[in-house]
C-alpha cells in the first residue's frame, strides 16, 4: 500500500512538474506584461506554442549531424529527471536517493553540455557565440551553485535534498549569515542559469546580446518544442529548489494521508506564484547588462557562496 503510494507520489511529482512548467513561464510573462502596462498573452499561451511547434515539421540545416537531432531529447530528459528529483509538495520521494544535490547540478550541467554542442553543430557564427558565452557563464555559475550546495549540506550534514529540506523544516536553523549568503548566491545563479534579465533576455533576438537564444537559433518544430519545455522546466526546477530549501513550509513528508498531500500541493503552487511574481518584478525593474559584465556578476555569486561555506566551516567548529 505504502509502496504504491510512494510510486504514485513520485509519478505525480514528475507529471506535475511537466504540467506546471509552461504555466509558470506564462505566469511570469503575464505578470511582466502587466507590470509594463501591457495586456500581454494569455496565461496558457506557452501550451499553445508547444503544441503548435510539436505539430510543425522540422527544418534541419544541411550541415546538421545526428547529434543535433538527439540533443533535444537528451536535454529534455536530463532536466526532467533532475526536476523530478526535487521535493516539491512532498519530501521523501521514492527515488530521492538516486541523485543528491551535486548530482542534480551535474545533470543540469549535462543538459547544458549538449545544448552548447548543438549550438556548435550546424557551424554558424551565432551558434558559436551562444555556446561559448553559455559555457563562460556556466563556468562561473556552476561553482557558485556547488558552493551553495556545500553550505547547505554542511548545515544539514547531507547532500540529499530530502534531508536538507527536512532539516530546514524541523531543526531550529535560526537566521544564519551563511544561509543568507547562500540564498543570495543561489538567486544570482538561478537568474543566470535561466537566461533571465540582467544576464540574458529570453525575449530578445538581438544577435549580439543573446546567449541562450543564439544556441537554439537553428532549432525548429518538435526539437524547439522540447528545448522550450526543458527551459521552462529548468525555471520551475530552480524556483522549486529555492522554495523547498528556504521555504519548506507545508511540505508533506513520507507516508502521510492524502489530505496532507493536497495541502502540500496547494502550498507548492502558492510558492511558485510568489516566486514567479518576484522574478517578474525583478526583471522589469532592472536592465540587461553587457555580456562581459556577467562574469563580475557571477564572480560575486561565487564569492558569496564561498564566503558562506567558509563562515559555516568556522561557525560549525564554534
Amino acid at each position, binding site marked *: 500500500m505504502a509502496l504504491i503510494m510512494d510510486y504514485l507520489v513520485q509519478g505525480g511529482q514528475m507529471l506535475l512538474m511537466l504540467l506546471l512548467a509552461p504555466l509558470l513561464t506564462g505566469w511570469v510573462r503575464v505578470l511582466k506584461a502587466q507590470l509594463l502596462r501591457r495586456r500581454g498573452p494569455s496565461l496558457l499561451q506557452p501550451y499553445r506554442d508547444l503544441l503548435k511547434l*510539436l*505539430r*510543425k515539421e*522540422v*527544418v*534541419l*540545416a544541411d*550541415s*546538421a*549531424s*545526428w*547529434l543535433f537531432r538527439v540533443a533535444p531529447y537528451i536535454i*529534455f*530528459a536530463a532536466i526532467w*529527471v533532475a526536476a523530478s528529483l526535487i521535493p516539491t509538495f512532498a519530501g521523501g520521494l521514492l527515488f530521492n*536517493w*538516486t*541523485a543528491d544535490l*551535486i*548530482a542534480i547540478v*551535474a*545533470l543540469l*550541467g*549535462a543538459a*547544458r553540455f549538449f545544448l552548447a*554542442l548543438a549550438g*556548435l*553543430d550546424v*557551424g*554558424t*557564427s*551565432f551558434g558559436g557565440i551562444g*555556446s*561559448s*558565452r553559455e*559555457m563562460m557563464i556556466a*563556468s*562561473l555559475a*556552476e*561553482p557558485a551553485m*556547488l*558552493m551553495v550546495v*556545500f553550505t547547505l*549540506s*554542511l548545515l544539514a550534514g*547531507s*547532500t*540529499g535534498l530530502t*534531508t536538507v529540506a527536512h532539516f530546514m523544516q524541523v531543526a531550529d536553523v535560526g537566521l544564519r549569515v551563511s544561509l543568507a549568503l547562500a540564498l543570495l548566491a543561489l538567486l544570482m545563479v538561478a537568474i543566470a542559469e535561466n537566461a533571465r534579465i540582467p544576464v540574458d533576455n529570453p525575449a530578445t533576438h538581438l544577435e549580439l546580446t543573446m546567449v541562450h537564444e543564439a544556441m537554439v537559433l*537553428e532549432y525548429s518544430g*518538435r526539437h524547439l518544442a*522540447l528545448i522550450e519545455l526543458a527551459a521552462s522546466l529548468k525555471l520551475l526546477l530552480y524556483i522549486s529548489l529555492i522554495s523547498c530549501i528556504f521555504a519548506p513550509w507545508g511540505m508533506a513528508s513520507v507516508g502521510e494521508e492524502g489530505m496532507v498531500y493536497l495541502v502540500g500541493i496547494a502550498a507548492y503552487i502558492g510558492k511558485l506564484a510568489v516566486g514567479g511574481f518576484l522574478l517578474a518584478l525583478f526583471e522589469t525593474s532592472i536592465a540587461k547588462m553587457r555580456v562581459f559584465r556577467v*562574469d563580475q556578476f557571477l564572480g560575486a555569486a*561565487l564569492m558569496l*557562496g*564561498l564566503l558562506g*561555506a*567558509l563562515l559555516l*566551516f568556522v561557525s560549525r*567548529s564554534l
Partner: protein
Amino acid sequence: MPLPVLLMLSMALLAISIYAVAVARQPGGSRRVYGAALAISTLALILTLTHLLTAPEPVTLTLPLGLPWLGAHFRLDALSAFFLIVVNLGGGVASLFALGYGQHERAPERVLPFFPAFLAGMSLVVLADDAFTFLFAWEFMSLTSWALVMAHHQEPANARAGYLYLVMACFGTLALLLAFGVMAGPNGGYDFATIRAGDMSPGVATAALFLALLGAGSKAGLVPLHVWLPLAHPAAPSHVSALMSGVMTKVAIYGFIRIVFDLVSQPIPWWGGGLVLALGGITAALGVLYALMQHDLKRLLAYHTVENIGIIFIGLGLAIAFQANLMYASAAMALTAALFHVLNHSLFKSLLFLGTGAVLTATGERDMERLGGLIHPMPWTALAFLIGAAAISALPPLNGFVSEWLTFQAILLTPELPQWLLKFLAPAVGALLALSAALAAACFVKAFGITFLGRPRSPAAAQAQETDRYSLAAMFTLAALCLLAGILPGLVVDGLGPVVGLLNGEARLVAQHNQPWLTLAPIVDAKSSYNGLLVLTFMALSGTAAAFLIHRLASNALRRGPAWDCGFPDASPATQYTAGSFAQPIRRVFGSIVFQAREQVTMPPPGNGSPAKLEVKMRDPVWDYAYMPITTAVVAASTRANDLQYLTIRRYLSLVFGALVALLLGMALWR
C-alpha cells in the same frame, strides 16, 4: 601464484622488444609485435584482476639480480594489483589500437622496439619491492618513453620536448633516490620491508613527503613541475601518448602512494596533507585553464591530464590530513575517491588520445583550427570521443562524475578536522575543484565541438575517412568501460576496498554490493547517495518516451534546408567559431589574470580593404618565473666557466700554484 607469471610476462615483453628490432622493417612486423603485446597485457590483466578480486594476500619474490647484497625484490599486493590493472588495461587497449594505427607509422623501427619495453617498465615499477629495483624500472620507463617521444625526431619541437622530458624525469628519479636514502637512513636497508619496519622520526617522514612530491609529482605533472608534460605527451605517437597520459602518470601516482601511505611508517604531519591539498587544487585549476587556451588537440588533452592529476592529489591530500588526525573512515573516503579517479582518468584519457590518433590518421591534422565537421565522415569515432568527453567533463551517468562526486563528499567531511588552516583550505579547494570541473566541461565542448561538429575548415578535414576497425574496437572498449564504471560505481568501490584497507590501517568504505538498486552510498544513504544506473534508466526512459510519443502523436516530418543563421545562410566555413574564438570569453575572464593575456586589435583605416588583425599575447607564469631563471643561470654560469677552457698555460700553472699554496696554508693553520 601469479607473481612469477607476471614477471615472466614482463620478461616476455622485453623479449618482444628485442624481436621487434629485427622485424620492425618488415611489412607484417608491427602487427605481430602489437598483437603479442595485446595478448600479454590481456593475460596479465586477467591475472591481476583475479588476484585483486579473490584473496589479495601480498606475495613476494626475490631474484638474485640488482644490488648484489640486496637482490631484486618483487611484491604483489592489493595496491600493486590495482595499478597493474590500470597499466595492463591501458597497455592492452593501446596495443589493440596500434594494430590498426601502427600501419600508418612513418618510422616503425623507432617505435616498435620501445613500445613493449615501455609496458614492461611500467609493470616492473609497480611490482618492485626495493628501492633499487623500483628506481631502475622507473628510470627505464622514463628512458623508453623518451625514446618513443623522440620517434619523430626530425621536428625540432619534438627534440626539445624529449630533452625537457628526460631532464625532468632524471630530476624526479634523483629526488626519489634521495627520498629512499632519507627513509633508509644510515644503516641503509633499501628493501621496502625494512623501510616499512624501521621507525623514522617525524622529520624524516616530512622530508620523505617533500621528496616524493618532487619525484612523483614531476612525473605525474604536478604544477609547477608539469612543464614537460604538455610538450612530451603530444610528441609521441598517439597510442603512446595515450599510455603516457593515461597510464604512466598513474604509475607516478603509484610511486607517491607507495612512499607516503605505505613506506613512511611515521604519520605525516597534518600540514603536509594541507600542502598536498593546496597543490592539488592549484594544479587542477591551472591545468584546465592551460588546456582551454590550446588549439592543438593533443596538447589540450595533455594539459587536461595535469588537471586530473590535480584532482587525484586533492583526494590524496585529504587522505593524508585525515590520517594525520586518525580519522580513518574519512581517509577511506578520500582514498577511494583518489583511486577511483585514477582508474577513470586512465580510461577516458586513453580513449580521448586514441580518438585524437584516429583523427590524426584520417586528416593528418592536430590543429583544431583546421578541423571540423568530422562527425559526418567518422561518426563512430565521434561517438566514442563524445563519450570520453562527457566522461571527463564529469557528466552523469558516466564515470568521471562518480569520482568527482566522491571527492566532493570527502571535502564535505573536512569540518571534523581540528586544524583551522585545513578548515579554511578545504572549501577553497572545493571551489577550485568545482571551477575546474565547470571549465573542463567548457573545454571539452570546445574540443569536441570544434573538431567534430560544424563544417570542415580544411580540405584535409573534408576528405577524412572513418578509421579502421581495430582502432574503433579499442575506443569502444574504453567507452563501454567508462559507462560501466559510471553506472555500477558500487562494484568498483568494493574492488578498491582491499587497496584502501592496505593503505589505511584496514579502514575502508562500507561494502556497496548489498545496497538496494546498486546505489552508491559511501557512508549512509541519508547522508549522501548516488545511483548512476537509475539516472541512466530514467534519462533513457524519459528520452525515448518523449521521442516515441512525439513521433507517434505529433509530427515526425523533416526537411533539409540551408542553415538559418539569422538570415545569413551558407556563409563560408571560415565564419564559424574557431577554437580561439570559443575560448575568448573565458580567456577574457581568467586568462587576463593568470596568463596576463593581452588582446590587440589592429583595424585597417576605413576604405582600406585589408583584413583586421587580432593578436593575443599570453605568458606562462610558471615557465617565466620558475624555469627561465634556472636556465639563464646555468647558461650564464657555463659561459663564465667556459673562459677557463681558454686560459694561458701560465694561468693554469697559477691555478695549480694557488691550490698548492692554499692547501699548505690550510695545513699550517690547521694545528
